[in-house]
């Protein structure tokens, strides 16, 4: 992205460097005083998140940076979205749809939330259906949302069986051919992937983004 102004590059840098105290006032000024195009400001956020993602993959950034980045983007998004609406802007084009939820019996959501956020800021339309999601709810939501990828999350060992049961039910409902299934969570490994019949597993949010990109043919 070489056509950013110096100030825009400054915002990208501050966001990517976790410099919240400088980034947020600048973004607020751009949106509210300078009347910058809100879509363009959100584009700056995405550019910053590309850097954050790369630093995460390189082992320079970890969960705290992802969480703070999420918080900064939420704040900027909350200012930008009403402006986009007021300007009659529509929803941005997305790479595709991902449905995500924590399987039944398991109430954990920290990892799932980070995956949802990372997918969202990487241009996927995410529907997060929460925790302790019954098999039938997954099926109903899939029929309504028509995702290309379904993400099953779980932290406890009981989630192994819940994931297997959920994926078996996708097969049983004749839905399975329409989307890929990825699983993730504290204890998830290749043994669990094979046990549940998922298409792939990921150990962190960036891997989840990578899987979705690959499956939807999005260039990294």
């Amino acid at each position, binding site marked *: 992205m070489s056509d950013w102004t110096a100030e825009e590059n400054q915002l990208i840098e501050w966001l990517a460097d976790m410099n919240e105290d400088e980034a947020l006032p600048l973004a607020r000024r751009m949106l509210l005083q300078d009347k910058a195009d809100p879509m363009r400001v959100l584009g700056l956020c995405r550019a910053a998140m590309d850097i954050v993602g790369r630093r995460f993959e390189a082992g320079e950034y970890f969960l705290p940076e992802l969480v703070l980045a999420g918080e900064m983007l939420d704040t900027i998004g909350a200012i930008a979205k009403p402006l986009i609406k007021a300007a009659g802007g529509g929803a941005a084009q997305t790479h595709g749809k991902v449905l995500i939820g924590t399987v039944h019996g398991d109430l954990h959501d920290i990892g799932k939330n980070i995956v949802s956020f990372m997918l969202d800021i990487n241009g996927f339309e995410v529907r997060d259906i929460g925790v302790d999601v019954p098999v039938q709810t997954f099926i109903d939501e899939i029929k309504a949302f028509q995702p290309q990828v379904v993400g099953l999350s779980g932290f406890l*060992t009981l989630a192994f069986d819940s994931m297997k049961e959920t994926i078996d039910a996708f097969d049983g409902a004749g839905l399975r051919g329409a989307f890929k299934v990825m699983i993730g969570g504290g204890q998830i490994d290749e043994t669990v992937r094979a046990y549940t019949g998922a298409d792939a597993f990921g150990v962190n949010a960036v891997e989840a983004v990578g899987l979705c990109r690959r499956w939807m043919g999005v260039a990294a």
Partner: protein
Amino acid sequence: MPALDGGGGMNASTGPHAQTPAARAAYDARWARIMACVRLEQPDRMPVGLHSFFWPATYGGISYRELMYDYDKAKQVCLDAVLEFEPDGVFPLLMGTTVGRGLEKLEFKQLQWPGHGVGDMQPFQYLDREYMTADEYDDFLFDPTGFYLHQYLPRVAGAFEGFAKLPDFAGLHYFRLVHGIRPFALPEVRASFEKIVAAAEEMNVMFGHHLDWTQRIAAAGFPLFNGGNSIAPYDFIADYFRGATGMMKDLFRHKDKLKLVLDKAAVFLARMTIRNARAADHPIVFIPTHWAPDAFMSPKQFEEFWWPSFRRMLLELIDAGLVPMPMWESDCTKRLEVIKDIPPGTCIYWFERTDMVRAFEVLGDRVALRGNLSPSMLTTGTPDEVDAAVRHLVDQVWRKGGKLILDGAFGIPDETPVANVRAMFAAARKYAG
């Protein structure tokens, strides 16, 4: 301070239960095996621990809810498991699970448990929330006890809700004391005290059953692996006060106050841990760690925020004659060189997903090792796969001189087929004594 040996005193007490000389000898041999590993000496065979939360219910064919509520059934299934598998050390199994009645009477809010938010065959689950806001760091730092009384306890347990109306104790002096005690007569404060007393009485009943069970297993020749437990200061604040995401943001937004709170917590957590270990007359302290893993923060953040207060606490426990047993959850491979910085022969490091062979290479001359059969393999694999995994650890760690205490990555996962646990214990005897 004199070291607790854990081989005598209350921990070895058999109460009214008869102990044969053979059982006494077996008890002593098991305890000696564990302590030899701690001192980095060669035991006669590889010790095996028995640690779990809800697996005894799976084993004994009772519901998780029964394990939490039915003292007699819980004692029986936990006793049966010990007698069948003959571990060298046993987690105080009832303390970890059989607290349903106590939780209910306290109106405990931080967990959902069978019958209270989750089904009868589901384990309890912690509710990650912000139980202290970032604005409250100053209050906590100024007066942690006051913060507990007025804010924290009423938030985490309904029985304490009336405590929000208690006076500020600092400042109650002379006539201020006489005038200032009136809140104790408030109906909501009285109600809190009544609920707390009822919960305390319930926990006394529970503790009586716990003691009876420990005396039974001691009489049969089996020591408890650990008496008390504790927590790393960072995890204490992250899990029980700020919540996961709040804490991660604090690393950027409130780093100085966070460090002050961690320093303060390290002091009172160490005091509490030493007091409890002495009451239990047991030197080994189980310390599950939550936020140390490689993936959760950068090496720099780990060394700045997580490790210093924990190391200080470990050294205080060691000075008090205790044997800290941190369970390093998830993968802590990148932390090994840092966490090596403790006196040799004083700790047991239990690893969950860290490669045990690598841990042995880095820490073999420093600490006893515990673990770490994979949970996915234990729950979904076959007995042959369990056998092969035990053999791998024996060949690559134990036979090379590692002071390994075999166990699951975090004990026996709740759903593990009994055949796989049998395979684990049988393989330990087959390959390492």
